[in-house]
């Protein structure tokens, strides 16, 4: 729902904004530097994706930065345990905007096969906004490349201005998510309600 004033404003800026937006998105999309961040099995496939056979580098995404300050993409590759979850959130918080999250593999999406466990977080999206989820246990390296391509498409479609612009362009939306604390049995809070909106499926 764009109000009329904004619409005309946009039309005035028109070409300028579009070009800038396209250039900006193109720049971001083609330079996605992941964080060196492997959690479990999927991390091996993530490495395999950057190895000779699959070569993530072709997309300019092989620059795995060890410091979150220089990374754009957090590939949550593997099971996020409750012991690890606060750290994951903190590392994500320490990344500069714009930042993206790929939940790689069943465990990262939903806890996967280990979701029955008492120490396993049922999906990293309980605390972080996940941009792309790759099912699979572990997903093939090609699947990760496909996910990065999906992410690129998502980035390319983002708007620079307007109400539906992404989080990092909006000053009013926080780019930090509260870090859960260790509780006596579970993390506190067990989920971040600002991020986690599951659909209800009644059985």
């Amino acid at each position, binding site marked *: 729902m764009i109000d009329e004033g904004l619409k005309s404003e946009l039309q005035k800026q028109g070409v300028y904004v579009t070009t800038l937006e396209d250039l900006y998105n193109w720049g971001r999309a083609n330079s996605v530097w992941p964080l060196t961040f492997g959690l479990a099995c999927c991390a091996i496939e993530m490495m395999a994706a950057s190895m*000779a*056979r*699959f*070569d993530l580098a*072709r997309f300019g995404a092989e620059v795995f930065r060890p410091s979150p300050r220089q990374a754009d993409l957090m590939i949550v590759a593997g099971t996020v345990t409750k012991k690890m979850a606060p750290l994951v959130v903190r590392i994500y918080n320490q990344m500069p905007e714009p930042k993206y999250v*790929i*939940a790689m593999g*069943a465990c990262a*999406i*939903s*806890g*996967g*096969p*280990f*979701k*029955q466990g008492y120490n396993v977080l049922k*999906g990293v*999206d309980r605390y972080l906004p*996940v*941009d*792309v*989820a*790759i*099912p*699979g*246990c572990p*997903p*093939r390296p*090609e*699947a990760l*490349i*496909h*996910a990065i*391509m*999906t992410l690129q498409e*998502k980035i390319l479609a983002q708007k620079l201005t307007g109400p539906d612009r992404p989080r990092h362009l909006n000053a009013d939306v926080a780019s930090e998510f509260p870090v859960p604390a260790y509780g006596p049995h579970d993390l506190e809070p067990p989920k971040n309600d600002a991020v986690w909106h*599951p*659909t209800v*499926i009644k*059985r």
Partner: protein
Amino acid sequence: MLGEQIIKGMAVTARNFFGSYFSKNRLTTVQYPEERLPQKGNTRQFPFLVYDGDDAEKGLRCVACQICEKECPPKCIYIVKSKDKKPDYKGQPQIYPLTFDIDISVCMSCQICVEVCPFESIKMNTEFELSTADRFGDLLLTKEKLAKPNSYYQKIHPADAAESDAVIAAEKAKAEAKAKAAAEAKVKADAEAKAKAAAAAAAAPIAPPPANPPTTT
């Protein structure tokens, strides 16, 4: 001498560098979206449901026996049995799944559901390009998304599909034979009964006991 082995090591990398321009073995990259690796024999990703014929609803082999649901290690299958029955490929009335959901955000691609399925109805797909931004919408595969024709199965796993087709054909043949035998027996019995009845009607007042129908296992 200091540095000798370092130079040898550098020779190895140099060989790889130049080799990458000539030898396929030295440049192993498969440029994924355009090129693809040939599919390996038994490769598997996520399960799908096989149906025969053209109609997914009608030809679905699954009879909602719920074995896979029980055996699935991460418990990612959810089945609701139907109340009514529909004929299966053997023509026998069977219940069918009203709901058959697989949560591939949980599935660990272990293939145990395939192994335990007695009806050759759940098989492993090779599709892996499933990454999505919508976790809740796209990763819970419903029956409609899961159902794939047998021809698809034959395409992705020709050997296994042939095997499973043979099993089904054998069972079908068996069932047909059984049905035929039953039908024949029935006809025969009917005929016999008729004849006997006729004979009895003609000759004796007491009818003989009817012949047992042929039993199969």
